[in-house]
């Protein structure tokens, strides 16, 4: 039978039931009448003929039912009946329904919220045509993997044509460009740009809506200055005009010719608005790693194959270069993994946590349903006595639980939607791929599907349990048992106890996890970063142009800028540098003069005078750098306490000379520097790690090579200490900096407190969510314990009455109930402690300043849980102790 005709039959049967029923009646009547006619014709009397015909026909009702059962859509109709009946049942017990729906909404809502974030960040494929074949190329060393690549490696990778269809280099947007339509333009705008090799657009499948992308010639050295624009920038600068092609655009101090515009949907990572040909010199032997490399695997090449191939390529690469001892190897990983980074791990942990919450909700609801099913035993016994099969009753109960979970799912969806917005509003989270303010986190069909699946699975999971156990029960005994109220059936109470125990143990796991993370965040906030971030404003400025390729130009800008800034009312001190204290990532080797064999490594930064006073970094010995430490004057350097401790443990470092960046190429070579001061440590490696040795050199005393390599890839950061709220000075400070720089805009204007908050925002996000989930778990578990004890007391009223009549006092009764409830709680706690050790091990990487077996967490969480459990059993226990034996016995 075709689907259409079947669907038609179902519809017809459903909506024209009356008509079809009366036609059936007519048909049967005609049949009997004709049979009667036959018999009369054969000579029977009229009444005799009718009687025998009816007898031969058989039970009319049964025949009709047999016909109905054949009709299409009968099952649907039964389902509809079940649903309507279930709905009425639920409507008549609003407290129960509300409790179940609220519990589920919490569980499902939390899951929806987290899933929508996990989906956006981790699960969704990248929005490129061949996203599953795009890989990031990595350098693997014993210290870990690294995406920063130099030209010789890139050149080697491009030759691996047996596995790659395309290999391209691009950089991480660097400092940004000051863009204007003509040089006289007074107020340029700063945009992010990417230097990319010619194949970049092919690899990412970037749609070109106007013009073209770079030719191989344009991407070779001296290939000319051309630029490809993003859709938005094209709209902004050229109003979407076709005539934009061939126009000139000033990036910094250089004119570029616009050759193409990319489609609106193309989003690169990192985000950018202009693309400029890299023009790498392939013969270059410069080993300075300053860009990333992505590859498009040939169809059919697996990651494992690619990795095996790359390992061989690495060996060969080093052999050709006579680097026998090199332990560096090559590898690939999916580009998505490299973009997500370690955010994926914390999200997966959160997802696990939120699943636990859902499990607890399910256990709780299963418990509530069991109670209800027990109370309805008599109803089901009567139904089966009237001929309802076991399956029919299971189906009825399942229908009800699915209605409940659907209601829970809808409320959960709403809750989840509000929840995820609220969470992202509270905490920017610092997550990759979530778009601006989390706009990429949306409730789409994937999330809807997930919620639907979760609702259905939970509905069936928690519904099946009670349904099966109810329908199993012996008809006779339940009819009898339901008449009296003499305690719950043994098997039932065992299931319920198991549910409560598992609920409590899961809640304990959540509590221990939250306790550990909360202790971590306290430990982190208690860490003295080594500087004062309060009342400091930070502003970024991209230095474009020939002048800033030289140290003198940058030093002059720093000097003039600082002069202007210090004249602004409310500014206490200011400095210009390429790093903030928690972001110093560059490292350089150094050698102490007079110790020929010792090589040291340290973090390295350059700054204008004033940095120490802006951040209130203590000067422990010697002097700060000042305006007299300029090019031409004796070279000086400041070291931090960590470096002093490590390399000058028993001597005075002041006056010692070190040579920095030896063997790093002629551009970075410089003369020895004298150590003139020792400064306090800052957590230059993240708050959770020990400060590393660091050297600070005056901005004005570095080689042109340093200056060039920094202004090309990083913005200059102005840091300003203010006397009051730094926000009030933003306008004045920005204006002075624009004047000092001859028109450069400042961007990413933030207070240092905001920068600090951002750096720990993902951890705070995880901690906040874990704490919320822990609280929800605790709440649900206590409801669960309360529920089972309250119910058991209600069921055992008679027994308690008899005990009292036989002489048990109220204290003993209370003790009995409390003990019974607490035994469950304790079993759950014991089980939970074991499981919590497992969890703590899993999240060990997120912990700081606290052991994964932290005694405080492992003692406080069980204590909190036990006290809440005690409270939850105390109420029913008190009620039990107030049972009036006379009343109860009389009631029977």
């Amino acid at each position, binding site marked *: 039978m075709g689907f259409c005709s079947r669907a038609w039959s179902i519809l017809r049967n459903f909506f024209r039931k009356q008509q079809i029923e009366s036609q059936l009646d007519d*048909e049967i009547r005609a049949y009997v009448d004709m049979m009667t006619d036959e018999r009369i014709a054969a000579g029977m009397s009229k009444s005799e003929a009718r009687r025998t015909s009816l007898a031969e026909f058989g039970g009319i009702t049964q025949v009709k039912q047999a016909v109905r059962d054949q009709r299409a859509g009968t099952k649907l109709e039964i389902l509809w009946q079940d649903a309507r009946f279930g709905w009425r049942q639920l409507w008549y017990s609003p407290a129960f329904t509300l409790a179940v729906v609220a519990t589920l909404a919490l569980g499902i809502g939390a899951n929806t919220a987290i899933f929508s974030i996990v989906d956006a960040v981790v699960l969704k494929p990248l929005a490129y045509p061949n996203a599953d074949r795009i890989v990031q190329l990595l350098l693997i060393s014993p210290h870990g993997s690294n995406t920063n690549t130099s030209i010789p490696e890139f050149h080697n990778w491009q030759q691996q044509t047996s596995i790659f269809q395309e290999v391209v280099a691009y950089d991480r947007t660097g400092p940004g460009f000051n863009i204007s339509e003509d040089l006289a333009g007074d107020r340029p705008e700063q945009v992010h740009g990417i230097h990319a090799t010619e194949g970049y657009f092919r690899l990412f499948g970037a749609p070109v809506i106007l013009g073209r992308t770079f030719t191989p010639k344009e991407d070779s050295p001296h290939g000319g200055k051309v630029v490809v624009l993003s859709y938005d920038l094209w709209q902004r600068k050229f109003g979407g005009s076709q005539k934009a092609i061939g126009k000139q655009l000033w990036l910094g101090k250089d004119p570029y010719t616009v050759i193409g515009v990319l489609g609106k949907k193309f989003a690169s990572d990192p985000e950018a608005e202009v693309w400029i040909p890299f023009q790498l010199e392939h013969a270059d032997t410069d080993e300075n790693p300053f860009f990333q490399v992505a590859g498009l695997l040939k169809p059919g090449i697996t990651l494992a194959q690619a990795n095996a191939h790359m390992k061989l390529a690495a060996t060969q690469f080093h052999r050709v270069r006579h680097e026998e001892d090199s332990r560096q190897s090559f590898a690939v990983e999916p580009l998505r993994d490299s973009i997500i980074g370690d955010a994926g791990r914390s999200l997966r942990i959160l997802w696990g946590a939120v699943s636990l919450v859902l499990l607890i909700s399910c256990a709780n609801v299963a418990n509530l349903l069991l109670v209800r099913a027990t109370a309805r035993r008599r109803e089901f016994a009567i139904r089966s006595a009237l001929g309802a099969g076991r399956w029919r009753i299971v189906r009825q109960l399942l229908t009800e639980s699915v209605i409940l979970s659907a209601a829970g799912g809808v409320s959960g969806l709403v809750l989840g939607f509000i929840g995820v917005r609220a969470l992202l509003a509270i905490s920017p989270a610092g997550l990759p791929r979530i778009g601006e303010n989390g706009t990429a986190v949306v409730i789409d069909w994937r999330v809807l599907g997930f919620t639907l699946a979760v609702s259905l699975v939970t509905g069936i999971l928690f519904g099946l349990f009670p349904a099966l156990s109810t329908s199993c029960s012996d008809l006779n005994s339940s009819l009898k048992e339901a008449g009296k109220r003499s305690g719950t059936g043994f098997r039932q109470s065992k299931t319920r106890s198991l549910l409560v125990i598992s609920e409590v143990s899961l809640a304990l796991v959540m509590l221990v996890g939250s306790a550990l993370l909360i202790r971590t965040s306290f430990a982190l906030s208690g860490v003295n970063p080594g500087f004062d971030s309060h009342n400091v404003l930070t502003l970024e400025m991209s230095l474009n142009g020939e002048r800033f390729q030289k140290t003198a130009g940058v030093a002059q800008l720093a000097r003039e800028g600082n002069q202007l800034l210090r004249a602004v009312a409310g500014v206490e001190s200011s400095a210009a540098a390429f790093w903030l204290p928690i972001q110093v990532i560059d490292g350089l080797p150094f050698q102490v003069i007079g110790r020929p064999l010792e090589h040291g490594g340290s973090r390295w930064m350059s700054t204008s005078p004033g940095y120490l006073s802006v951040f209130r970094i203590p000067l422990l010995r010697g002097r700060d750098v000042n305006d007299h430490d300029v090019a031409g004057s004796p070279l000086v350097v400041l070291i931090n306490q960590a470096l002093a401790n490590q390399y000058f443990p028993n001597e005075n470092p002041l006056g010692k000379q070190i040579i920095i960046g030896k063997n790093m190429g002629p551009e970075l070579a410089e003369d020895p520097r004298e150590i003139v001061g020792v400064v306090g440590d800052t957590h230059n490696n993240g708050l959770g790690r020990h400060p590393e040795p660091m050297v600070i050199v005056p901005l004005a005393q570095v080689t042109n090579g340093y200056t060039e390599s920094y202004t090309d890839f990083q913005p200059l950061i102005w840091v300003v200490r203010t006397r009051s709220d730094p926000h009030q000075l933003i306008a004045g400070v920005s204006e002075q900096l624009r004047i000092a720089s001859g028109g450069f805009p400042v961007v990413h204007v933030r207070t240092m407190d905001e920068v600090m908050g951002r750096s720990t925002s993902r951890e705070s996000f995880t901690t906040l969510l874990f704490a919320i989930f822990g609280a929800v778990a605790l709440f649900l578990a206590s409801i669960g314990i309360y529920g089972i004890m309250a119910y058991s007391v209600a069921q055992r009223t008679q027994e308690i009455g008899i005990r009292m009549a036989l002489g048990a006092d109220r204290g003993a009764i209370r003790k009995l109930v409390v003990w019974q409830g607490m035994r469950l709680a304790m079993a759950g706690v014991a089980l939970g402690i074991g499981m919590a050790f497992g969890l703590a091990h899993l999240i060990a990487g997120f912990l700081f300043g606290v052991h994964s077996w932290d005694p405080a967490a492992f003692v406080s969480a069980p204590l909190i849980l036990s006290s809440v459990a005690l409270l939850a059993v105390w109420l029913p226990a008190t009620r039990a102790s107030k049972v009036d034996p006379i009343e109860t016995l009389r009631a029977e």
Partner: protein
Amino acid sequence: MRPKQTNLLQGTLDLLVLKALGPGELHGLGISRRIEQITQGTFLVKPGSLFPALHRMEEAGWLSSFWGESENSRRAKFYQLTKAGKGQLEVEKEQWMRIAVAMTKALRAT
């Protein structure tokens, strides 16, 4: 005395109904009588099995029905084969023949 009756095999009823309707439309009792006649009284189809079968086959699209007048002018529901029903009759006939031949062979084998 009626001849000895046989229980309808599962699936035979459909075939018999289709066969009975082969020559033309019949009402319920007519079908029942016709089956009795063509099987020489071996199969007596009771309303309890006939009605559900008719309705099922109608929904399957093998039969169509209309209200008409019986030979002694009673209003009755008549059934007739649809095109699909005629096809189904051929299919089931052939199937049955195969089974019957096979069963006969099997039972005659020594």
